């Protein structure tokens, strides 16, 4: 700090101790980097750029929208809401009592195939107003317990479905406990339609998350029964219904795969569904739907993406047009008093 300060002011200052000192010169080294002169592209929004950007976006988006819409239109989907219909008319005043009551709650539905449906036809159940993404619900599981029998006792996260009389429940937690238990039996022209319930879960789930040596234990043995029961002789990795259910949905309206029909359904066919209406969505005003759907390369039926693409593309096209007109009709005139008033309040982004 104190070394090397300036020499005193008189004659001595500014002494030119030339070449020797030059070696230790403090002159900053030159490089394009340090002098902040790196070659750079400096994009600027000229009218041309603005218009062509909008045009290009619309030129890309509109076809994409059309393609997506077509893909969505290709999909044949049958949606049947049955939660109310499947309760006998007299019981409808108190649906909860009905669903919680005993007895076989069988119900039949007839679905008409509006268009030819190529196999595979996927069978889904759709629940609405069901918060599988509730924090309490999502946390209520034990991944390690699902994976290996060694960790059977890791049930701390599973309360209150953690144990029965000190014995751990496998699989524990609210998610497993509330396993969906409506069943569907499909038939066409009185010939039953095989619903393949294998291969509906993710491969990685079956292989890595759910152990093939873990068997259900004490499941649904608590004081309150939630949903479906599990066959204690089948390892969890084979219980695909459970695996599908345990992969929690992101939103309160969701579908889950029930199975696949591996034969084509012809237009005009009537699918007769015999379903057992066991699952209680009535307490929380949830809806239940049965969905049969084919898929396109984009997946299931949803026009939203196509429409959104078309809309954004359209907006961009409109903007391109608007800007073109604006630049043509009203180029930024120099010295235009209106420009001044616009600019009165400098700011913005």
């Amino acid at each position, binding site marked *: 700090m104190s070394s090397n300060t300036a020499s005193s002011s008189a004659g001595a200052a*500014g002494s030119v101790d030339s070449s020797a000192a030059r070696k230790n010169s403090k002159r900053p080294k030159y490089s394009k980097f340090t002098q902040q002169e790196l070659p750079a592209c400096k994009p600027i929004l000229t009218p041309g750029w603005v218009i062509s950007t909008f045009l290009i976006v619309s030129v890309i988006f509109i076809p994409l929208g059309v393609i997506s819409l077509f893909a969505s239109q290709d999909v044949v989907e049958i949606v049947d809401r049955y939660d109310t219909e499947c309760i006998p008319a007299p019981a409808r005043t108190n649906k909860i009592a009905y669903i919680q009551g005993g007895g076989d709650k069988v119900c039949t539905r007839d679905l008409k195939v509006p268009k030819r449906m190529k196999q595979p036809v996927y069978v889904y159940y759709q629940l609405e107003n069901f918060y599988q993404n509730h924090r309490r619900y999502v946390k209520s599981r034990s991944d390690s317990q699902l994976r290996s029998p060694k960790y059977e006792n890791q049930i701390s996260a599973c309360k*209150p479905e953690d144990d029965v009389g000190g014995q751990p429940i496998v699989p524990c937690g609210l998610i497993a406990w*509330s396993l969906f238990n409506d069943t569907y039996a499909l038939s066409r022209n009185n010939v039953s339609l095989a619903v393949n319930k294998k291969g509906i879960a993710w491969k990685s789930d079956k292989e890595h998350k759910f152990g093939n040596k873990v068997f259900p234990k004490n499941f649904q043995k608590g004081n309150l029964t939630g949903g479906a029961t599990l066959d204690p002789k089948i390892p969890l990795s084979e219980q695909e219904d459970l695996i599908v259910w345990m992969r929690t949905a992101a939103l309160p309206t969701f579908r889950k795969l029930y199975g696949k029909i591996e034969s084509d359904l012809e237009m005009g066919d009537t699918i007769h569904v015999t379903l057992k209406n066991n699952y209680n969505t009535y307490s929380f005003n949830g809806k239940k739907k049965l969905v049969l759907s084919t898929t396109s390369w984009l997946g299931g039926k949803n026009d*939203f993406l196509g429409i*959104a693409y078309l809309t954004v593309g359209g907006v961009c096209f409109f903007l391109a047009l608007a800007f073109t007109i604006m630049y043509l009709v009203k180029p930024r005139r120099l010295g235009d008093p209106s420009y001044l008033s616009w600019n009165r309040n400098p700011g913005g982004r």
Partner: protein
Amino acid sequence: MAGEKRIGMKLSKLYSFKCFKPSSREDHSQIGSRGYSRVVFCNDPDNPEALQLNYKGNYVSTTKYTAANFIPKSLFEQFRRVANIYFLVVAFVSFSPLAPYTAPSVLAPLLIVIGATMVKEGVEDLRRRKQDVEANNRRVEVYGKNRTFGETKWKNLRVGDVVKVNKDEYFPADLLLLSSSYEDGICYVETMNLDGETNLKLKHALEITSDEESIKNFRGVIKCEDPNEHLYSFVGTLHFEGKQYPLSPQQILLRDSKLKNTDYVHGVVVFTGHDTKVMQNATDPPSKRSKIEKKMDQIIYILFSILIVISFAGSLFFGIATRRDMSDNGKMRRWYLRPDETTVFFDPQRAVAAAFFHFLTALMLYGYLIPISLYVSIEVVKVLQSIFINQDQEMYHEETDRPARARTSNLNEELGQVDTILSDKTGTLTCNSMEFVKCSIAGTAYGRGMTEVEIALRKQKGLVPQEEVGDDSLSMKEKKANSKKSVKGFNFWDERIVDGQWIHQPHAELIQKFFRVLAICHTAIPDVNSDTGEITYEAESPDEAAFVIASRELGFEFFTRSQTSISLHEIDHTTGEKVDRVYELLHVLEFSSSRKRMSVIVRNPENRLLLLSKGADSVMFERLAKHGRQNEKETKEHIKKYAEAGLRTLVITYREIDEDEYRIWEEEFINAKTLVTEERDDLIDAAADKIEKDLILLGSTAVEDKLQKGVPDCIEKLSQAGVKIWVLTGDKTETAINIGYACSLLREGMKKILITLDSSDIEALEKQGDKDAVAKASFQSIKKQLREGMLQAAATTDDSDNPEMFGLVIDGKSLTFALDTKLEKEFLELAIRCNSVICCRSSPKQKALVTRLVKNGTGRTTLAIGDGANDVGMLQEADIGVGISGAEGMQAVMASDFAIAQFRFLERLLLVHGHWCYRRIALMICYFFYKNLTFGFTLFWYEAYASFSGKPAYNDWYMSCFNVFFTSLPVIALGVFDQDVSARLCLKYPLLYQEGVQNILFSWERILGWMLNGIISSMIIFFLTINAMSAQAFRKDGQVVDYSILGVTMYSSVVWTVNCQMAISINYFTWIQHCFIWGSIGVWYLFLVIYGSLPPTFSTTAYQVFVETSAPSQICWLTLFLVTFSALLPYFTYRAFQIKFRPMYHDIIVEQRRTERAETAPRGVLGELPVQVEFTLHHLRANLSRRDSWN
């Protein structure tokens, strides 16, 4: 530091008044009692009694931390920031079941952020430590037991050691001077590191110790005051051979000052290490924060409020939903949540408590609204920015080998917002190397040269065509360079005087006396080069050096100074021969800023007593004898002319004293001098006053202080940029005005408002001596002048088509009144209306006061620039202090925030670096808030679909990496490298600087605009994603979207959007930006793959999510594409509209450049402003004046 010092000194006065009435005896009677307990056993540090005292060693540490306390102390420093405390609390809460995230994912970013800052602190501290080690290990010679001097390290010195310090070495501790290489035990000391004064100070040893042999067996005991911070006081006694000798500051050599012009000294160590005065004085300079950073705090508070509001809203909904989970008759609604058997966090029976706890959870959940890495990023960016400033070749000064230095990094962006520059004149605008150019002797003016100011004035008046002047000055310079004879400090040529021709002049005798005064009346010290015989001088001030050099060149060569005599080689004007004359030096009446003169009393070889005196015209003319006023009129005339030519003038006088008068006076003077009290200085002044009268006028000198290179251009550019420049100088009004013209601060056609007290009625009052009346009249006069000025200014500025420019000039006396609380508002108002303001004759304190007035009165950013110790107060008071690392010591630089070698570099520092840094930081902060709001609000929207239960939309680790890995580097690149226009254009269109002054880029509209943009983006991202990927199958194989897939898709959209937003909002794309922006997106996918391949217990919902599920799904990619474009669309459209309808300055300039280049033909329009810019400039002025009237 100086501020502290001043206060310290004042306190000491109070203290001494209270405790002991000034009298040396009483002072010394305190010794031994409290506060005066130090005992030093000279030359006997091993004395058992000395060991018992156990004074600390000379080891010095200036580091903030030690190895032991580094961690706790730096942690404490970290958590003084509100945001960090919030994150710490969050980290603690994350261990509780309230946490929506896992604890490690919360802790990791906090640790990284805090760790990075701590590393920075550590590195800085290590650097300080290195300096300490260097100082501690310096060598010094110490008198050992073997009765010889041996070398030891500074840190090993102990109290009582006798040391020997050689010429040009620093004193290792506070020493008591025993003896020196001079017989009479004097030595010269330079105290630049203490107070910034470069002049040499004289120290005397006590007579009894000054004999060199005596130190061999010297065994005295010093009893003195305890360590304190008062640099100019010392109280103690030396007990030696049974007698007591009082000690004063005269005998004390302070650590960090330097021995000059003395071969060696011997001294006893009195205070060591941290006990030394300089260390006791070390206080941290005031820490300054930039306006942007202060505003940023407000934004953080806004974000906190948003956070609280949305958390509260969420909790409300959550509370209601939870309450409803259990109906009154005990029926469960959402039975799958088991509301009958739950913890308090979800208990319908205690819904209020649940809602409250949820509120805490939500505070954590939406914590991403508060950018954790903002502070760290800003700090990193600022450090890198200052490196760029330091590395700028354009701000490197070849002659002094000094690059620019950003001494603090936290004010970079403030440089882009400077509204008012307060500049010192001498050494800042000028070189502070004085050249003797003219003189007036006996009413005749000598000296033919033309000063720069005169040239500049002529140029401005258009008397001389520009090129001719250019040629002229060039050839002059060449001539100077060619003629070897050119002498530094001497630029005088007049055939009547040089080469001994003066003897033929009519008043040869007076001329002789005149130069004798110059050769004798000074405190310079000659330094004879033994090889060449050439003599150089070390002088207190460059003026004095110029005088001595001038008298040497004209035949009065001063060559030796002893304690009691001054010797000259003179040319006898009768014989024309060279003779040596020795003048016995009796007394030196020193120069002080209050006295404004210095005198010496000598006995000439003819045994006559002479008082030789030089001083400012304001004090000298009134001291002239009646018979000494012969040439008064002419001389005054000349002085005025010189001042107009920008020269510094001094009046030269002499007088003969008769022996009797002298004897009486001397007694009084010596009495005063030997006093050791507070009043001493006043008494000395009073005594000096008595002898400095009845002087005989000889003439006056005129010394030119050359303008620094490029100053007028720089000032021109800065005022084009709309920056107001105030010059605060100690010079005379005329000099200041002319310098003002020379450096184009004042221009032809500018209306000058002069506020002064030099009116006849006030002078008349002064002569009557009624101080109260004078003060009252002065006050009224100033008030009237301010009012009039105001009216003048107001009358013309209404006519905005042709805004007239005003220049305000005010002198020091008037300033005293104008700074009075009753008038300061009016003064400020008037000053703001004026384009330039010059305050003349202002004291350092006034400089600081004016700075404070401007800073607080206008609320705008002020920059003070100066080079001397007298500017320190101003530098520290201003928002930014810029020190000129020139000739006048390092004090200003030490107190500054930025140091540059030349005033002209200020242009580049402000217009280029300031502008860039301001832009960068402003944009960076806006962008930071944008990106965090975009991210944070997607979480909030998701909550609305998750019954506000507190489940985040994304995997924990995605989120904790968001700020640290996926978005940080592009922001830093933005903050370090972005430029709207190149440096060349910044300088060419100084107007661009107004973006910073008006704070356009960081206005509330803009900040809120960015925030709004963030919220809109988040809505687009969220709602498009959830609708495009709703319940239907998202792949050919019929699988549906689940929590993990939606999260990944949405998160990818966020990463893409914020990074692409960055890409479209920056103006400058080098490979670095490309690398960082696209790299960040790449890193996200890389992370996803790596994290997804970890075992599922660790990766949970991210397990294989990209590879297995989302990457093969077309809809994921299509959604991403759609969402990213749509989210950018609002901003892009806005920008397109804005460029069309209300372009910003840089937009216009860039556009202009583009079209210019497209037309390729190198037309000669380069010098002109584009029409649009002219236009905006016009509008801007209107804006400015409106703003002013607002204040």
